[in-house]
């Protein structure tokens, strides 16, 4: 726990620095755009230059999203008396796991669903559980498949669902034992999704 909090502090410092770097890149490319707009029509490579600036702008945006998700992770081991918002935790996980999913040629997404549902778990615990469920699913999915995570409310509890494949196949994955042990320790229910597809994690309710 102490290690995780310390790593979190280091990561939070790093994301702050990343943000300063991205802000400087954005201002510098913005200045180039301004100068180009003020007389760049005489510049032989104006169009290519503009394209380059467009790429810079997109990459800054990408870096911003990444830094935001990483900053969320940095604070995720911190305990909170009100627990954590499940959708926020899954959004950060999906953002940071996209690269892992891409290695399996699977596209990972979070369904637009229920927000505001809280659990007593720390965000890092929700991310760990959902991450293990994703690890079970990825090797089983065909190329170009879509794996969707979602959050729902069932009987007053927040439920995180990893959409596919069949639960029985997921149970045979080597990562499942880890997931089951972790769920047991944290008091999280683990069961198949509707029609035996996917994994449903029933998370403990946050204190009111």
């Amino acid at each position: 726990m102490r290690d995780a909090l310390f790593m979190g502090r280091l990561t939070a410092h790093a994301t702050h620095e990343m943000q300063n770097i991205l802000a400087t890149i954005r201002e510098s490319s913005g200045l180039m755009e301004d100068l180009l707009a003020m007389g760049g029509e005489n510049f032989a490579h104006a169009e290519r230059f503009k394209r380059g600036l467009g790429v810079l702008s997109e990459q800054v945006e990408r870096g911003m999203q990444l830094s935001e998700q990483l900053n969320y992770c940095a604070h995720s081991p911190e305990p909170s008396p009100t627990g954590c918002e499940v959708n926020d935790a899954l959004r950060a996980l999906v953002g940071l796991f996209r690269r892992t999913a891409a290695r399996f040629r699977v596209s990972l997404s979070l369904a637009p669903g229920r927000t505001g549902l809280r659990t007593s778990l720390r965000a890092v615990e929700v991310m760990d559980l959902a991450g293990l469920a994703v690890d079970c699913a990825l090797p089983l999915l065909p190329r170009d498949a879509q794996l969707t995570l979602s959050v729902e409310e069932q009987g007053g509890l927040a439920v995180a669902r990893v959409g596919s494949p069949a639960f029985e196949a997921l149970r045979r994955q080597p990562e499942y034992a880890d997931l089951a042990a972790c769920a047991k320790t944290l008091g999280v229910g683990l069961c198949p999704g509707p029609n035996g597809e996917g994994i449903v994690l029933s998370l403990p309710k946050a204190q009111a």
Partner: protein
Amino acid sequence: MNTKDWKILLVDDEHEFITTLAERLELRGIGARVVFDGESALLAVAEDEPHVMILDVLMPGIKGLEVLERVKRTNPNVQVLLLTGHGSTRDGIEGMRLGAFDYMMKPLNIDTLIEKMESAIDYASKAAKLGQ
């Protein structure tokens, strides 16, 4: 008030970032003075009161929120826009409680920044009229 009459003070220890921002504002006809730490910001305010101060929250030495508090005590008409990061959004909210006009997250969108500066200047001139 015309933008060329605006008096803007930019405060951030990220030299490249803040000087480039000043340059971009200048291209839009908005002059801005730049300082790189809290101590210099307090001196700059005492020397020539700006209409708007753009102030980074996390700086070495005197922190942004302390600069804000001290400026609001000595020069309450100065409108302060705080610059925050992911980790300092709470500081932005705390800054509003201490009298900041608004806060923005880095990286900035220059058009949004100028809109906020304009709103801050409008607010200050309306408040000044009401106070007369």
